[in-house]
């Protein structure tokens, strides 16, 4: 009954790319997502309160996705693009809608 290796990643580099996307990448996206919402939504308090536990739930979800990709580099690239986009949103949010 162990998972059939036919379907699993065998290359070490592929695995490294997927894990990098999953753990630090997933964290980056979930954090940036909540921070972006906190800046652009009218009230930041409920967003930041939700972040305190929601971060881990969203992170877990994003941790899963890279392993469904056949090519881990594609996923890592996608995650990086998302992080850059969210960060840009945060940059402008902080410029035009700062909390303090």
């Amino acid at each position, binding site marked *: 009954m162990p998972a059939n290796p036919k379907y699993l990643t065998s290359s070490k580099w592929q695995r490294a790319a997927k894990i990098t996307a999953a753990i630090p990448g997933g964290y980056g996206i979930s*954090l940036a997502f909540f921070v972006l919402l906190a800046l652009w939504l009218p009230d*930041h308090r409920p967003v930041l309160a939700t972040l*305190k536990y929601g*971060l*881990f739930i969203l992170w877990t979800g994003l941790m899963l996705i890279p*392993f469904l990709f056949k090519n881990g580099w594609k996923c890592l690239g996608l995650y990086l693009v998302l992080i850059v986009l969210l960060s840009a949103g945060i940059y402008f949010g902080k410029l035009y809608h700062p909390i303090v």
Partner: protein
Amino acid sequence: MNKRNYNVFFDLHTVSGIVICVGLYIIFFAGAFALFEHEIEVWEESGKVEQALPVYEGRQPTMSSMDYDGVIQKLSDEGYYLPGRSISFMPTGSVGEVSVYMGASQDTLTTDKNKKAAHLHYSALSDKIDSHEDKFSFGTFLVELHYFHQLGEFGYYLAGAISLFFLFAIVTGVLVHWDKIISNFFVFRPWAKLKTLWTDSHTALGIIGLPYQFLYAVSGAYFCLGILAYKPTMLLYDNDPKGYAADFSLWPAFPGGEGSSEVTAINPFISETREKWSDYEPTYVYINNYANDNMHLQIDGRVNIKDGFWGLGTIIYHTPTGNVVKENNPFHGDYADGVSKYAYMLHFAEFDDMLGKTGDLFFRFIYFLLAIITCFVIMSGVLIWLTARDKKSIPLKKKRYNERVGFIYLAVCLSIYPVTAFGFIVSKLLPEQWNADREAILSAVFFGLWLIVSVFFFLKKNNYFTNKYTLLSGGILGLFVPMVNGFYSGNWFWHTFSLRQTEIFIVDFLWIFLSVSTLFAAYRIKRNEPVSHPELKPVISG
């Protein structure tokens, strides 16, 4: 679900599960007892104090009727230099007892000795102050074990990481199971081969415990990895902790000020707050910069949950002037305030506000059962992993390696049960003159014995043997727990039951319950076939 995704989820579930299983088992096993920390404290203390124990009043003894100024005077009489210190009061769970924590004095004029922080216990019944070390209970030890406090800060983050990957294992587990989630729930074939028994119980019990496990995975990460959520958001406040504190009802850091001869009384502020908010019960009283012109008093507390669901009920006074610096009305809180409140309440299983004392005890017992069930789910997961890899197609070397990992995991996890039972007995029998070293003795006994027993079972290299004899020895030692309590302090469980000394009774009851169930299990455990490693016998995978 397509075949590829199924296999990917399956592999992720296996890998994340097998990596965290030992840590997770320890967390849930110790955490199960951590739910009854206060009861264990009282259980240990009983028989040592002269006066009869009062009737159970719930876990929050009344902080509102305490004489704070009297206790502070007593501290001063005991020789503690108070100016410039922070002093906090918290209920311990024992009736009429509070834990008093004094921070090091910020007063620059004091000597080194007076600057040292101190952790004390004050009992209103005997009007006595004891040091915290004297009171170190095995319950506290188990609480600390369940976030690996013994490993320091690293242990704390490790517990957080385990929680996070536990969440991951839960999600992947549900996905693997998704297609058959309903049909398999009703499948239980205890008389079939071992592998199906493990699989059926792993999935059925996993689904029963799912909401509970999800709650603990998320809240565990919330507590231990909270820094990952909190630190980066400080950027939004331009790295000013005051801004964050103002938004989230945290108390600001008060800078030290000049000393003053005037000492303000605390009691009037407590009564003032209680008059302001009806039915208000303080749960935490914190004095900053005692006897200082920058002295502040913070009171945290609760009102009846029906009147203030989200509300926190925090107030901060600047005591020399009597001004209110900050106030969070317990009747008008919002969701953002309530998140931390409910994270605590759910993780620490504090339901007395919502359900009353009996409901609270009942639900903590359910939580206890679910924690033990989770331990079972973890262990059956390991056994599935083992049996699934014991096939002809797997190279012998790899097979031996897996087998050894299985021996270690089972030996370490299962032996914690008899060792914990033994720890309870030791904690009850330790003579009072060794009180100052309680923590060291209890830790040495627990970890030393755990190591010896684990090594013994590992060397026996027989999972059937490990399983049977940990259950048997744990069951027998567990029955000794209420007996030791009875012989040593006269608190036989039928007495404590009829006298409604629920705290003492519940600890005895938990052990009788656990012992009887595990002795029954140990009696029922049979070798399926007379082979040396019955659990490892080749099975056809399904």
